[in-house]
């Protein structure tokens, strides 16, 4: 494995990432700018007066041909300019930026909890295969997968906020005002998001590790003088992580999108609330920007896991395993 191979691999993945984003931008543009016919009319409704219509048209640059508008939109976004929200009278980038301070920490916290809970439980179940503990963990996981995260959020509020009064039931105080309160507000939502993910991870990790335990190199490690437990720990877990990582890429990507559902339970001022308001007010420019940011978050997560995979599996870079 040479450094140049690594660079080529990373560049290829980055290129794929860029192409996905570009095509996604074209699709979003087509849906939100071309399909409605006249976006200005769409935003203002049928009864809009001609003056404000032409004003909005000028503001949105609707006189230019479509391909030019697409190009300008993408070009501006690359420079951090997502346009001006018509309904909120503020730059879209600023509106989204504020909300990301809730949505991003929430999804990252949920990913950390899901991994920290799911993987060890999966390993434990695999090591105690067929025993009571294994059955118990797998029943829990089977249930955890079936619980809608937003409903679990409601149950958490009932228990920890209403009954025990340990944590706030909802709402958010900004990080600048009271960082501790802000963090406390994110605990229950991130637990709600993490539950199904942790369950899936536990199941996949268990399956992968059970598979690996039967592999020849585990026998080799034992022949060298390790117990089964030591062999699995030193050689099994890392190998078992490969199939887990593949799934993790998709799961965590969707977790980012799922955040906006759970925000609703806890009245969190995240990206979700912004989007729902924008939809009901037909603010195409805001929806467009927010959608692109969500897609960016999803694809960036997938990219990160892809690159992580290459770090774990040396075969990927030498082309021995495609």
């Amino acid at each position: 494995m040479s450094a140049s191979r690594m660079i080529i691999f990373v560049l290829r993945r980055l290129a794929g990432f860029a192409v996905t984003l570009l095509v996604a931008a074209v699709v979003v543009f087509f849906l939100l700018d071309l399909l409605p016919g006249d976006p200005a009319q769409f935003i203002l409704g049928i009864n809009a007066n001609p003056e404000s219509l032409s004003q909005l048209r000028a503001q949105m640059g609707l006189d230019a041909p479509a391909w030019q508008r697409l190009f300008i939109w993408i070009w501006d976004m690359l420079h951090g300019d997502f346009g001006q929200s018509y309904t909120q009278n503020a730059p879209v980038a600023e509106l989204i930026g504020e909300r990301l301070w809730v949505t991003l920490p929430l999804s990252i916290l949920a990913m950390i909890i899901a991994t920290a809970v799911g993987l060890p439980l999966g390993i434990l179940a695999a090591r105690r295969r067929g025993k009571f503990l294994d059955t118990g963990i797998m029943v829990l996981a089977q249930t955890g997968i079936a619980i809608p995260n937003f409903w679990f959020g409601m149950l958490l509020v009932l228990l920890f906020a209403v009954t025990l009064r340990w944590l706030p039931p909802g709402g958010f105080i900004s990080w600048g005002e009271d960082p501790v309160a802000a963090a406390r507000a994110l605990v229950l939502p991130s637990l709600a998001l993490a539950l199904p993910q942790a369950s899936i991870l536990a199941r996949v990790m268990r399956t992968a590790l059970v598979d690996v335990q039967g592999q020849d190199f585990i026998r080799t490690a034992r022949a060298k003088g390790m117990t089964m437990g030591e062999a699995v720990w030193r050689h099994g877990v890392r190998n078992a992580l490969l199939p887990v990582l593949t799934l993790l890429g998709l799961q965590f990507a969707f977790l980012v999108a799922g955040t906006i559902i759970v925000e609703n339970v806890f009245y969190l001022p995240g990206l979700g609330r912004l989007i729902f308001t924008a939809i009901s007010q037909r603010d195409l420019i805001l929806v467009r920007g927010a959608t692109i940011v969500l897609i960016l978050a999803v694809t960036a997560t997938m990219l990160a896991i892809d690159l992580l995979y290459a770090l774990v599996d040396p075969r990927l870079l030498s082309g021995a395993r495609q």
Partner: protein
Amino acid sequence: MRRAFRHPSLILGLAASGLFALLALVSLVWTPYPIAEIDIGRRFLAPSLAHWLGTDNLGRDLASLVMAGTLTSFVVAALAVTIGAGLGVPLGLAAAAWGGAVEWAVLRLSDFVFAFPAVIVAILITTLFGPSAVNAILAIGIFNIPVFARVARGGALSIKTLDFVAAARLAGLGNWAIAFRHLLPNIASLIIVQGTIQLSLGILAEAGLSYIGLGTQPPATSLGLILRDAQSLFLLHPSLSLVPGLAIVIIVVALNLAGDGLRDVIDPRLKHQGGTGVTP
């Protein structure tokens, strides 16, 4: 078939999902009370003989609502599976049968669609056409396409290396004929198992979308929509959200048990592989 009856979790799963499907179907012709009947005088009733699961804030019978809501959830998820399998399986088969540029295109397309989780598609469609159950069907269905394409391609690729496919090719069969006469029948069981799993994931996804107002709209109802209505009241009347939530959990567990069981019965080699479904 005999193996199926020795698999307790498969029977349990099939029976429970069958029961809920039956309740849902019955709601077409009969519910204890009409679901649209509002009667403020009898709101927030506790479970009783007259109202098995009690009534909601508008005096509607919760049992009737859950029955009708289950039907919507099942229909949305089933149509989404139909879309996903209907488009995804041919794509996956084509990728396996043709290989080369076709395979490349299918793989890139499926990677691309994965960048659009159901929530994002639902946001886009709702912005354009307003919220409706059709949004949920489309959003979940589109997400299902690459899932089925990958499963079909993976299954077909492992069949394709077998000698009887080479024999068929020597006999002069073209790619389409091979794909549909030889590959498809052999991956049908895989597709059925994946279909069961996607059905359960679809029910979860429908609930999520309807809960945030991007899916089913009143006067129709779905399990997710009942939860949305209960949202503002759940601190005072938790049972309003417990009942539909539990219904979702039971249906999804039942479908997953059925899916895992089917996988074991159809292909014993895959036993203990555990479901690796991806949530939309």
